[in-house]
């Protein structure tokens, strides 16, 4: 028996078919030992350089090496530990994709394709924006948290939620919360998901408004994506029905023309005027757009833009990573700035603990991923054992995007970085005032010497180089990232000549997926709302998605919800994004707390107490840091930090008849500060309370499980699998052997053209109904 165990085993579920699962031999082979020792030494060296090198020549390449080595080691060892001790994937059991295959949303999908789909669904503007803002504290804190956070928390959450959902017919997080925590816990989780979704849409909209305001080039090229999508939609439906490939090719070509055409609009006196919009105008435009996009048929806008954005997303990220390796830029930000310690940073207020961990949410730990890991990806995965590659590995890729964004922000000249990220009230908006402001920040070089003073010229030249009138106070992270990308790309011969094109290309790329998040999010939230309303006796009609008045009403409620936060943010006299971004980060981290609570409860119910620390560690860390941040946001007596302290200070100023308050320039603006801080403070309390309730219910269930030595969980029965696919990108020796057996039998193992009788009885209709969140 020991001999067979060494060689590995092949499992069959059907005597007529080749094996459908393998049990790999234990132990680590010599080749792997050498490979991972090498990666360990290389990674340790890179970390050593990042942590100790000071001066003007810290190369970005060390960051890439340190991150990649750490990712690979944790994917091989830590994710494997989770796999062996907790998940114990059973490849003889069919995944939801195989069991309910319907040729549409339930369909076993090639692992490379699914990896791409999963990555495209989880990666958006979040991992780009957070690290850019966090760079105000220096490059070191952000780098450590992005890498350590992902391997111990973010990727663990994504992987564990994915596995949970695979074992539960691909159910969504909300449903799993209800199944595992009971009706009350599930209901609170659902309200949490809904409200958090509203703030997510609002903050992302504000981010992109920051990049588009007073930028005719940007507004024109983004506006053009709407007619381009319409054209593609009409083409695919009426002109050449179903020719999705042709339409996508036309769309990509038109998109490049739209970006290039923006340059002409920018220099045209009349057109430039037409496309110059204020933040408030953009906020209303965004709300109207969001409403229309959510009620228009999918084929006209959403689907065609999706085809465009997947390639833009994957392509641009690969391009940026390659550019960093080719250019090997050096850091201009020091390892740690004084803002990490005094908490007075202009991009967001607060000390490193806890606010760094709130700001870099996506990229290290993102609660929203649990919505993709449950519900979407489980319906496409071929084998349970692939969850490690797709869930854990997919999140590592997103973390790598965050590292790239951090590098892009840290290589920008410090004066420019702070000039771009400080609110208008501080910089004054002109090159002269901005230079005065950044010169007063006591910035230091990497080696600790005072930074050479900025001249107003620095700001005007930088703006002219990227085809903008001004780059001062372009807050929100997106313009800084675009500027950093353009800065890196401009150092590559030939490609780099078009610096202004690359800046607007990057803005467009961020805007594209923010817009997709805005309208997909509005749609999802609308369905959640109408489903909840339908539970009220007599309102059952809301359940019917084709009932127009109901759909419009719910869409309008959702849009007014996030739209009013957007308007509040862009008119905020204190600078909206730096007030709202912490709320966004807190919301995201709290959603992660809900997801990790569900995972933790299931591990306890299964009686795996010895290994419960694996989800408990990120859960407790996340909950501590987020509650700490919420506490400060709610109770801090410091008005630049606490929403209610700010509210009280503004009220006191108003009562005294003051004309100005902080950066609010008149009594009307003081009223706005009072109102905004009250709204933000209320939301902070709401989020914290919702999540604490879910967490406490989770602890109660977990304690019950501990006392009884385990409890029944909601895992479904499952059926035998009749397909085979390797667990990772490259098949192992044993997997190759099985693949060869399938080939010899003349059957495609992936289930693409199975033998009659290989498919399962189709139950997808019932599952689909259940799966509406």
């Amino acid at each position, binding site marked *: 028996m020991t001999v067979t165990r*060494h*060689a590995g085993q092949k499992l*069959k579920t059907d005597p007529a078919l080749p094996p459908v699962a393998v*049990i790999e031999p234990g132990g680590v082979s010599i080749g792997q030992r050498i490979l991972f020792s090498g990666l360990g030494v290389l990674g340790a060296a890179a970390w050593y350089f990042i942590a100790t090198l000071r001066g003007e020549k810290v190369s970005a390449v060390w960051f890439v090496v340190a991150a990649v080595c750490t990712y690979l080691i944790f994917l091989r060892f830590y994710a494997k530990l989770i796999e062996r001790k907790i998940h114990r994937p059973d490849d003889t059991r069919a995944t939801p994709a195989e069991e309910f295959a319907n040729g549409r949303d339930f369909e076993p999908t090639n692992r490379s394709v699914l990896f791409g789909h999963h990555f495209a669904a*989880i990666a958006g503007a979040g991992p780009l924006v957070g690290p850019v803002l966090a760079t105000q504290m220096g490059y070191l804190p952000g780098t450590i948290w992005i890498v350590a956070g992902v391997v111990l928390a973010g990727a663990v959450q994504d992987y564990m939620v994915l596995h949970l959902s695979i074992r539960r017919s691909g159910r969504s997080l909300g449903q799993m919360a209800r199944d595992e925590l009971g009706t009350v816990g599930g209901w609170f989780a659902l309200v949490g998901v809904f409200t958090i979704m509203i703030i997510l849409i609002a903050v992302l909209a504000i981010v992109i408004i920051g990049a588009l305001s007073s930028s005719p080039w940007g507004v024109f090229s983004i506006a053009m994506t709407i007619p381009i999508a319409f054209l593609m939609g009409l083409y695919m439906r009426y002109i050449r029905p179903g020719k999705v490939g042709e339409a996508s090719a036309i769309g990509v070509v038109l998109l490049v023309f739209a970006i290039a055409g923006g340059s002409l609009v920018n220099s045209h006196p009349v057109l430039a005027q037409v496309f110059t919009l204020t933040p408030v105008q953009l906020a209303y435009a965004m709300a109207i757009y969001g409403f229309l996009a959510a009620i228009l048929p999918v*084929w006209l806008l959403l689907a065609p833009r999706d085809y465009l954005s997947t390639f833009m997303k994957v392509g641009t990220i690969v391009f940026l990573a390659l550019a960093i390796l080719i250019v090997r830029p050096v850091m201009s930000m020091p390892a740690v700035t004084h803002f990490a310690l005094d908490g007075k940073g202009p991009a967001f207020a607060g000390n490193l603990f806890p606010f760094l961990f709130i700001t870099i949410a*996506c990229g290290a730990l993102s609660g929203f991923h649990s*919505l993709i890991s449950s519900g979407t990806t489980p319906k496409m995965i071929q084998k349970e054992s692939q969850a490690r590659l797709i869930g854990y590995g997919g999140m590592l890729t997103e973390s790598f995007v965050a590292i790239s964004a951090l590098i892009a922000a840290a290589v920008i000249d410090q004066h420019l970085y702070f000039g771009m990220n400080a609110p208008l009230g501080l910089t004054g908006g002109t090159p002269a005032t901005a230079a005065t402001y950044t010169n007063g920040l006591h910035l230091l070089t990497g080696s600790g010497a005072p930074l050479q003073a900025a001249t107003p010229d620095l700001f005007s030249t930088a703006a002219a180089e990227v085809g903008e009138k001004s780059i001062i106070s372009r807050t929100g992270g997106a313009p800084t990232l675009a500027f950093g990308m353009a800065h890196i790309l401009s150092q590559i011969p030939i490609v780099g000549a078009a610096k202004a094109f690359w800046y607007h290309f990057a803005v467009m790329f961020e805007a594209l997926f923010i817009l997709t998040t805005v309208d997909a999010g509005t749609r999802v939230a609308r369905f959640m709302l109408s489903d909840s309303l339908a539970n009220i006796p007599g309102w059952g009609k809301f359940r019917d998605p084709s009932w127009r008045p109901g759909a419009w009403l719910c869409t309008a409620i959702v849009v007014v919800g996030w739209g009013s936060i957007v308007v509040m943010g862009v008119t905020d006299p204190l600078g909206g994004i730096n007030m709202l971004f912490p709320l966004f980060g807190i919301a995201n981290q709290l959603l992660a707390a809900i997801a990790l609570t569900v995972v933790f409860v299931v591990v306890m119910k299964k009686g795996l107490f010895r290994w419960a620390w694996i989800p408990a560690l990120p859960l407790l860390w996340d909950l501590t840091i987020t509650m700490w941040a919420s506490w400060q946001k709610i109770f801090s007596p410091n008005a630049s930090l606490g929403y209610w302290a700010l509210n009280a200070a503004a009220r006191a100023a108003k009562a005294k008849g003051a004309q100005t308050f902080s950066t609010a320039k008149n009594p009307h603006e003081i009223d706005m500060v009072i109102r905004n801080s009250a709204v933000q403070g209320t939301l902070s309390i709401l989020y914290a309370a919702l999540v604490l309730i879910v967490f406490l219910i989770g602890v109660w269930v977990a304690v019950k499980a501990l006392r009884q030595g385990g409890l029944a969980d909601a895992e479904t029965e499952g*059926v035998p699998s009749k397909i085979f696919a390797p667990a990772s990108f490259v098949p192992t*020796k044993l997997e190759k052997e099985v693949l060869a057996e399938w080939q010899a039998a003349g059957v495609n193992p992936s289930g693409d053209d199975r033998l009659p009788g290989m498919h399962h009885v189709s139950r997808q209709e019932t599952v689909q109904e259940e799966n509406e969140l």
Partner: protein
Amino acid sequence: MTGFQPDQRTGRFAIAVESARDDGSAPVRGPEEGDAVQRAWHGTVAVVRGLAGLDKYDRYVAHQSRTHPDEPLLSEAEFWRCSWDAEGRNPKARCC
């Protein structure tokens, strides 16, 4: 194989267990089309088509003729209409 019971947790549905050959023999090579470059190219095309969703109709045809060979197939245009309608009724969230 004798005496070995597959782990209940990693092979609940297993009815038979075979050991790996592990006799040093090379895996059975099945019929392969084209040389290495061609195969790599075809693989890349398949992944790109899958990522972009361009193979959705082909997959539907394969699925339908496998599971319901007696029912008529939707045309490509009809198929896309149905699938967009379904997407409209069942939207998928996007991340931040």
